[in-house]
């Protein structure tokens, strides 16, 4: 029997604030940035009212937020934070250090376009920019998922075979500020499910002192990076296990990817986050008209699951990869390059094109999804045309 839940009307930020309240972490160092601010407003209120007994550190910058997160996590605390865009960029240096120090910090990233010019709306340039930082990345389609992913992130990060930080992403404003139905679990059930954090090492063990963050030169650095790679590899198994445990708890299945009407699909879109909801709607519409279309939603982008993705798309002749971030001077966006490369050994592989879309909060509507499926009709025949296209921008 799955755990009891109560439907509530919450925004994505509300939902994450709620998740953080239920997790009741030891330390939350944070700095305000739109559109993450609502998460912190909620959490500060919980602290002020004694609904959590977390220590909230209102630092003077995101750089210090991640720095304090590292210090607290090294001292054995369960640590969470949240940020977006330029805030993530400012903490960049320490984002890498958090991962290489193997600290199970959970950070909600409310995806927002990186400056410049300054823009407060959604795209994925912030989190995609640090896709190689050593953090696990989970992308949320809805407020519900942002809530659930946050719970699961804690368990994944703190598993001793993993000990890697996790970024839970949701789309700025589109998800973070839109009210949706979110089924919220009981506090006690979540407390039990998330459990206690048992640190492997802590600075507070003064009887058995250890040194954290030493100078690591050419004789050992590489092996430490290999250990990080191995941890990311092990994370695949742990994520799978946590997903299945959460399925038992919630009755809802989770996987690295979500295949939506892909089984016999001729053409498909690959996307992340909120756009997937829009695409599902269009898939249903076109399916009703007899068109064999589908969607592959990538939930976990780091670690990347090449075989799982290619297998899910095996019936497709034409595939469009949607990237909500640009890789200037590169061959398409980050999702495109990785998915396309995953098909390298396949003898019969789909024709794949890339769309850069939604930058700086540019709307993505059913009209755009229709346009993509339409253009895929030509692409699937091998008439690729422009391989990396813009969707929804003025020419």
């Amino acid at each position, binding site marked *: 029997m799955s755990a009891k839940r109560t439907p509530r009307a919450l925004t994505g930020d509300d939902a994450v604030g709620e998740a953080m309240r239920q997790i009741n972490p*030891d*330390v939350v*160092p944070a700095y305000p940035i739109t559109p993450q601010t609502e998460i912190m407003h909620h959490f500060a209120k919980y602290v002020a009212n004694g609904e959590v*007994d*977390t*220590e909230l*550190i*209102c*630092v*003077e*910058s995101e*750089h*210090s937020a991640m*720095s*304090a*997160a*590292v*210090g*607290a*996590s*090294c*001292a*054995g*605390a369960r*640590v969470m934070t949240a940020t977006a865009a330029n805030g993530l960029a400012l903490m960049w*240096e*320490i984002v890498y*250090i958090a991962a290489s120090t193997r600290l199970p910090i959970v950070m909600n990233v409310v995806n927002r376009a990186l400056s410049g010019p300054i823009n407060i709306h959604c795209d994925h340039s912030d989190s995609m920019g640090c896709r190689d930082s050593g953090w696990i990345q989970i992308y949320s389609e809805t407020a519900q998922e942002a809530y659930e992913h946050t719970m699961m992130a804690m368990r994944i990060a703190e598993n001793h075979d993993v000990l890697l930080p996790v970024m839970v992403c949701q789309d700025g404003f589109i998800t973070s500020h839109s009210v949706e139905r979110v089924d919220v679990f009981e506090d006690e059930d979540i407390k039990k499910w998330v459990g206690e954090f048992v640190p492997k090492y802590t*600075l*507070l*063990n*003064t009887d058995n*002192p*250890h*040194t*954290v*963050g*030493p*100078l*690591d*030169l050419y004789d*050992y650095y590489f092996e430490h990076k290999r250990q990080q790679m191995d941890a990311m590899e092990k994370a695949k198994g742990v994520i799978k296990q946590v997903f299945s445990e959460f399925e038992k708890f919630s009755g809802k299945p989770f996987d690295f990817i979500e295949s939506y009407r892909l089984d016999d699909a001729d053409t498909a879109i690959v996307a992340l986050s909120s756009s997937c909801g829009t695409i599902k709607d269009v898939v249903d519409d076109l399916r009703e008209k007899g068109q064999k279309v589908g969607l592959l939603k990538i939930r976990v982008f780091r670690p990347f699951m090449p075989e799982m993705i290619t297998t899910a798309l095996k019936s497709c002749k034409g595939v469009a990869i949607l990237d909500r971030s640009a890789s200037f001077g590169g061959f398409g966006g980050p999702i495109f390059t990785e998915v396309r490369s995953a098909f390298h050994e396949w003898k019969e592989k789909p024709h794949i094109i890339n769309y850069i879309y939604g930058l700086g909060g540019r709307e993505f509507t059913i009209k755009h999804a229709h346009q993509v499926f339409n253009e895929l009709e030509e692409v699937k025949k091998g008439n690729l045309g422009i391989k990396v296209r813009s969707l929804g921008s003025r020419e």
Partner: protein
Amino acid sequence: MNLKELSKQEERLESGHRLCPGCALPMIARQLLHSLHGEPVVVGCATGCLEVSTTIYPYTAWKTPWIHNAFENVAATMSGAETAYRVLQKRGKIPKDKKIKFLAIGGDGGTYDIGLQSLSGTLERGHNLVYVCMDNEAYQNTGIQRSSSTPFAAATNTSPVGKIKKGKEQFKKDLTAVIAGHHIPYVAQASPHNWVDLMKKAEKAFAVEGPAFINTISPCVPGWGYKSDQTQEMARLAVDTCFWPLFEIENDVWKLNYNPGDKKEPIINWCKHQARFRHLLKPENKELLDKFQAHVDERWEWVKKQCGK
């Protein structure tokens, strides 16, 4: 406090590290650690000489929990560790009676310059930790570049003496006064040559509730260019020339700890031993030397005034 007793205390910064012969950093570090008389302490170091030379993996010279995160964030990092300690104690995950002190150490680059924001934020938030700046007056670890702490006229690799320019053109930032503006419980300036004064200050700093800051002068053999057996003498001269006054600020009350009075030495007595000031000995640079002296005197008068002298 006497040397005989102190010599019986365990060393928590072991020998065998790779700091230069004559380096003041381990002297100051050991004075700080000994001032704790065995109390548990977590040490954090900003990137810099002390950090890179004491923890070359797989070795460490530290026999106490130690963390390095990055260059500009030792204050924020330690504020996180100190917060974790408080919350874990509150939640009963570590014993209520287990006392742990937190010591953050940064050089002048990591404190006066790149880490100033992180430090200011940490002090403003009132974390219970001690921050010690070991001021060797330049980015010595990266090969002697000027910082905002480098004294006027000093030559560094980014403020060299050339045909037109003669060393650093700006005066040293008065960081201790900047920190005093945070109105934290304890602020002091100290020197390793006066170890009793430094250790007493460290004892006070560790004893107060809330943040404490000590700025220490840390002579650097290669950066300053003096003989490696002259470190304590360079520190003494910095104090006796009144370039580096010894004072403390307890709950906003300034107190002068040492006044050389008539024995105040001219700044040239300090400069003449150091290669970075060699050009000041030349007659054609007398104007620079005079300007430096006038500034030292002006700052000294200001400090005395703060201290009610």
